[in-house]
């Protein structure tokens, strides 16, 4: 039996008065997938997440999570959520805070206590379990927030900018937790504008601009995609350079510097061999993959979709 998609939306939209926050969101994310939601500020990322977790009622369209329609109460027991600009009940201690939220998830007391201790350990806050949240730094708040989202061992978790405010150690922690979640089969919906973050954690990304998905991308395909190669050579003529066209395009020669876009990695030794047989001295070949950042700029534009 095939599993229902973790997230399935069809032409989901939200308008606030005249302002269209999300235009027409159509997505399908499979269970166990780590999905990155990318877009410039104001593109509608947070509004989309808020619709999916039931904070905002969509203006039109439909959506289902884990096979259940949005708004179903029992569905929320299988979902975790870390909001973007969160503030918590800061008069509670870390342990009380997690216990409260576990109770709201309807978790049984014994299981909850064990889970709270386990999560405090996992996010590195064991030593602060009895400290009031009001004394926490931003990074510690982010950690306790993440623990809160994972209390119920959700099948689907929404993380809205989970690494904002975190130092590099905290970021690595979040990255590791996301990887663990993937191994456990949890679907992670990651909202971030930290592209490097997305690049290392996600299976698939959606670029969103002006409230619409403008590109969907398997991140694995980035590995086999085009390579930008820069070479340092001497004795290369324009004519010899033009002869590289079977393996590459956008060939540009600037003095001793040659840049081109190789079709794939296998083209590199052949390019090298071609140059050597044409009596060109090759000092350096540096292949560079198209980064997610370049793709982002290509897709959304330098103005960031404004």
């Amino acid at each position, binding site marked *: 039996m095939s599993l229902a998609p973790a997230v399935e939306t069809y032409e989901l939209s939200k308008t606030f008065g005249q302002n269209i926050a999300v235009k027409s969101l159509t997505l399908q994310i499979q269970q166990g997938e780590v999905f990155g939601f990318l877009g410039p500020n104001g593109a509608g990322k947070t509004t989309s997440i*808020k619709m999916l*977790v*039931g*904070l*905002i*009622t969509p203006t039109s369209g439909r959506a289902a999570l884990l096979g259940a329609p949005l708004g179903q*109460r*029992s*569905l*929320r*027991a299988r*979902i975790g*959520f870390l*909001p973007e*600009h*969160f*503030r*918590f*009940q800061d*008069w*509670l201690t870390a342990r009380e805070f997690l216990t*409260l*939220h576990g*109770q*709201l*998830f*309807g978790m049984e007391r014994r299981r909850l206590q064990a889970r709270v201790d386990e999560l405090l350990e996992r996010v590195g806050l064991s030593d602060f379990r009895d400290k009031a949240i009001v004394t926490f730094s931003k990074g510690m708040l982010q950690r306790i*927030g993440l623990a*809160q989202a994972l209390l119920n061992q959700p099948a689907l978790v929404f993380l809205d900018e989970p690494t904002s405010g975190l130092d590099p150690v905290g970021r690595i922690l979040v990255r590791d937790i996301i990887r663990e979640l993937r191994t456990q089969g949890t679907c992670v919906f990651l909202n971030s504008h930290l592209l490097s973050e997305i690049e290392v954690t996600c299976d698939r990304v959606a670029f969103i601009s002006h409230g619409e998905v403008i590109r969907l991308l398997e991140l694995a395909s980035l590995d086999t995609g085009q390579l930008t190669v820069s070479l340092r050579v001497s004795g290369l003529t324009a004519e010899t350079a033009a002869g590289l066209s079977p393996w590459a395009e956008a060939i540009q020669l600037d003095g001793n510097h040659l840049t081109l876009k190789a079709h794939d990695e296998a083209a590199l030794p052949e390019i090298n061999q071609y140059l050597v047989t044409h009596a060109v001295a090759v000092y350096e070949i540096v292949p560079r993959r198209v980064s997610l950042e370049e793709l982002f700029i290509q897709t959304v534009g330098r103005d960031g979709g404004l």
Partner: protein
Amino acid sequence: MNPVFILARMTFVQAVRRRIVLTGLLLGLCFLIVFSIGFHMINTRSFVPPNSAEATGIQHIYDAEKASGLFLAGMYAVTFLGIAMAALLGADTLAGEINSGTIQVIVTKPIRRSDVVFGKWLGFAGLLGLYLLLLEGGVTLSILLQSGYVAPHLAAGLALIYMESLLIMTVAMACSSRFSALATGGIVFGLYGLSFIGGWIEQIGAVLNSPTAVQVGIITSLIIPSESLWRRASYEMQSPLSGLLGISPFGASSVPSLLMVAYAVLYLLAVLALTIRIFHRRDL
């Protein structure tokens, strides 16, 4: 455990940790000390010349009236403190949590939004109950110990005062589900002012035999029946004689009917239902 009780307890713990309870207790105690000293000073002074012929007979009536008057004055102040506390608690709760975003991790749990409203309402109702019990009990006890006076229909009167504060708290919560805390405070105190002045117009109208003025009072009571609950409470607890003495802020000359009390109960329930409806539909 039922989410309503989890959230009611959370509301209670919040009030304790945020020192709302401590502040209320300390200021309440200050109020009781001042009231008791004041009562002592007035109680020990006699208004009747000690050697007059009628002294013994009238003295007794005077003492009882004095105690009754001061008791109602004390309760009037307690009512106002209860209302202020109710408005402050109710005004910040939903608006504050929507504004800060703490509500987002609550309502995305597998609970109903109405559970949040009921839970907070219950928590505040408990807090107000304790606060009023301290103040009302303190005033009653202080007078009882110093003069031996106990007002008639005490339980009914105190319950009506409690209900008035619940009504104000519920109205504040309803506004708070839609407007900011500051706007809510403005609206609630505005409505309270309206009912207050309406109550006075009704009282003066009753004394001056002006049915139109009484009608104006009744209409404002229909808009918000808080003041009529106080007037019913003071009517229940006043001594039979002071009812005849006419107009005073602590007594009632035009008495709200039991129908008005029933209306207030329905009003409270309707406002609570409205709060749930607004909060249920609101984008957070």
